[in-house]
């Protein structure tokens, strides 16, 4: 899927955020389009989590503009962001381990029947829908009543993604969904990331694994020390470029250059250099 110049569903322009004297983010711009996976890469402390927290409404940005569907957005809570169709699946998962799958699926947005004080959960509908949605994503959970804690890590990620899609998310933010998973489980999750893209969602995929990012990404953003190191569509990058940038980019070049210089067969040069 190539970049089509449709209007972005979510756009950040020159976003800045500081905590006291520390600039967590400076001048970050980013746009997310429907049917596209935008990968955000970066080292620990590069500002990835601050950025997600701003997008998902947990933090307010200090400078710059945040627009959703062309309109300025000042969301003050995750609820506001959700109402705008921005759903976040956190690294530690927004699921309650002891609750059954179907209750988790509808947590916070439960469908009800009847009028107060007899308003009650529409249990049959909840169970059926949860099961259908999960099947649609291609996972088959034998017992919809089983507690989420008994599912595998990948299944849990998929459940969270399926839930976000069901509740009409336009933008799906995935925070390190593959970080804690093995190769096979990661593959499962990546499959559903592309499934979400096919369903027409704008996906923001946060990771520090360039291989995973390159498998599904349409556009890549690399953060370094709170600023943009790189922002490029897939067409302009190879996996090597990405790995290269991820590993340090320009800094790495300088280091490489220096290492090449001293990487002479004559090791004495190193000693000489050190002596001088």
């Amino acid at each position: 899927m190539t970049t089509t110049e449709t209007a972005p569903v979510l756009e950040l322009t020159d976003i800045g955020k500081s905590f006291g004297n520390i600039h967590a983010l400076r001048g970050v711009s980013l746009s997310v389009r429907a049917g596209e996976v935008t990968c955000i890469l970066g080292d620990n402390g590069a500002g990835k989590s601050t950025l997600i927290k701003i997008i998902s409404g947990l933090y307010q940005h200090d400078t710059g503009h945040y627009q959703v569907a062309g309109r300025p957005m000042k969301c003050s809570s995750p609820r506001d962001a959700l109402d705008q169709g921005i759903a976040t699946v956190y690294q530690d998962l927004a699921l309650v381990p002891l609750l059954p799958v179907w209750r988790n699926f509808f947590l916070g947005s439960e469908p009800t029947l009847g009028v107060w004080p007899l308003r009650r959960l529409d249990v049959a509908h909840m169970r059926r829908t949860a099961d259908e949605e999960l099947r649609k994503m291609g996972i088959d959970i034998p017992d919809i009543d089983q507690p989420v804690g008994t599912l595998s890590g990948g299944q849990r990620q998929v459940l969270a993604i399926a839930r976000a899609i069901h509740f009409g998310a336009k933008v799906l933010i995935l925070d390190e969904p593959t970080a804690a998973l093995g190769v096979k489980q990661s593959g499962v999750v990546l499959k559903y990331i592309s499934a979400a893209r096919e369903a027409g969602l704008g996906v923001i995929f946060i990771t520090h694994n360039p291989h995973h990012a390159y498998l599904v990404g349409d556009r890549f953003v690399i953060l370094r020390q709170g600023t943009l190191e790189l922002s490029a569509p897939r067409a302009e990058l190879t996996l090597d470029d990405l790995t290269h940038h991820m590993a340090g980019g320009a800094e790495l070049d300088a280091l490489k250059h220096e290492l090449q210089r001293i990487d002479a067969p004559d090791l004495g040069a190193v000693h000489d250099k050190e002596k001088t």
Partner: protein
Amino acid sequence: MGAIAVFLLFFAVATPFRELDSLSTVAYASSTIGIMAVGVSLLMIGGEFDLSAGVGVITSALAAGMFAYELSLNVWVGAALALVLSLTIGFLNGYLVVKTKLPSFLITLSTFLMLQGLNLAVTRWVTGSVASPPISDMAGFGSASKVFASSFTVAGVGVQLTVVWWIAFIALATWVLLRTKVGNWIYAAGGNAEAARAVGVPVNATKIGLFMTVGFMAWFVGMHNLFRFNTVQSGEGVGQELIYIAAAVIGGCALMGGWGTAIGAAIGALILGMAQQGVVYAGWNPDLFMFFIGATLLIAVVLNLWVRLRAQRR
């Protein structure tokens, strides 16, 4: 399962335990523990403790008695004011817990001690004595004691109305937990508060509501004490909070929250009630009264665990 074992134990050793009259007494003893245990177990499922529940009962009863007596109000008005007070205490407990994010154990331990002091000090200050004034001759006492503390006869056996209330509260709590939005939120708030918050569950409001539910139950039991015994001594209630928590835990509530049922708490209360009364019926050495209660509890809990493990292995 533990409940059945305790029942069979006393059924075997205590002849009077087999009488229907005795069972009604056991049901009554269980019901006053059980009504509080309903509120306390909901709160524990929601991941919080309330140590002030025991003295909260007495606070409510004292307040109703004193309001009614000192202001010469209909006792129903006194009861209504006490309800407002109990809900306020619950609200404050909850508000402090969600705002300070301190463990509810600490917050409610503080309110427990403060209430204990206030019960005594305010009662003495208002009435010049340490018990609430007798209100049995006041307007509304008759109808209030019908609602909170009357008994009726079924097949020749006197049954306390609190037993019926208890069952009603269990049914209501079970329905709320399993079949309503709020029930889902309670489990989620106790199971993983952060996750629940992230998907838009009003966790703080849920927790405050749960503390207020405990306040309501404390009010109800307080009214029962007041209208059954006419006066209430201000030093009572200390130590009862642990009985309520014990009932909830015996019934399978997780100490860390997120798991449990209202019916479980009811069974826990029933075990406690049977143990307390069974020792009396059996006529065992009264010096060892507490020991027997403790031993019965231990047996019930271990048996429950054993059955659960067996079931899982299968």
